């Protein structure tokens, strides 16, 4: 079994050997640039909801770049990509069920 795992690992390593170094620097630059945009926007006095939407949008793009390039998910088979990412997003989305309750708290209490 050890030899089998070793053979697969060697095959995966062989695939990684063909990845160019330049793309990692591009991704790194893009991540730093998006971070700079986020910090710049912080001091632009945007409305909180608008600000949150932009920041979370940029964070999702950054997350996609990290998962896709740095974590090599882009090069995995589609079965792995879809199964892992869909399961994760579904579980995280389920947690949003609590947010309406957080807003309801604001309207409670002695008037």
């Amino acid at each position, binding site marked *: 079994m050890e030899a*089998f795992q070793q053979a697969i690992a060697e095959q995966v*390593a062989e695939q990684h050997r063909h990845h160019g170094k330049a793309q990692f620097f591009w991704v790194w630059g893009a991540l730093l640039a998006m971070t700079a945009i986020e910090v710049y*926007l*912080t001091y632009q006095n945007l409305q909180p909801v608008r600000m949150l939407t932009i920041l979370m949008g940029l*964070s999702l793009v950054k*997350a996609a770049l990290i*998962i896709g390039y*740095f974590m090599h998910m882009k090069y995995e088979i589609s079965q*792995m990509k879809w199964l892992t990412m869909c399961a994760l997003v579904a579980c995280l989305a389920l947690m949003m069920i609590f947010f309406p309750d*957080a807003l309801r708290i604001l309207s409670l209490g002695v008037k």
Partner: protein
Amino acid sequence: MADVTLPHEMPAVYEPSLFGTYSKKIGMWLFLMSDSLTFGALLYAYSYGRLSTPNWPTPFHSESIVNATIMTAFLLTSSLTMVLAVRAAVHGDANAQRLWLLATMACGMGFVLLHGREWSKLIAEGLTLPVFPKLPGQAAAGEFANVAKTVPQFPATFFGLTGMHMLHVTLGVVYLGVVALRRKFIPILLIMWLAAWLGTPSYSPFHYGAHVLLLAAVVCGIVLWLKPKVYDSSDVEVAGLYWHFVDLVWMFIFPLVYLMSAKIL
């Protein structure tokens, strides 16, 4: 990907591997997915607190924002050096692999030190938790003394979320240290523990938190004693997955916790 050629002296028949990759990598992905839910729950708890609290504090001055931005740059750079370490490993360049891993660890330690400084500053200004040791002669009139009393959700979720992330980064540095230096890393880890323990005042939460390094040294010692091995490119790649994950989580903590709570004058 599922078809793997085995050396012909091994006449065994195996099932195709799950997702066409090796088990360690799948194991790490499963762990990271479960850990995502842990961080997801903490981020949602923070957001819930913020939504339900009208007087949510905005304690982060521009100095804190600059500090957190530098921390973010450290983590992003560490991800680049990590991916270069994986690249060196698959090309069989052991020296470059070790150097890139050490560079990643240096960035990680820079992140933890800056984060520790940020925490210490906030605690000194009165933003604290009941479980933290009391500061000697702590000024009741510190800038955030009231925040801890009137909006206890803020310090609870802030320290919970960022503390959990700091713990992950610290353990990531230890993990990379073991992969890069193996047994030679244990004495270095013990020196780090002593430096962190003796170098922080007894009223600092890091004075007790430093014992995580001692615990890590014991666990790493047992692991390296039970299964001494030379870590190959697959081990470096799996360690890299963990490291990129802590970077990924910070990409949500930084805007949500720091930028959305910046004090704009």
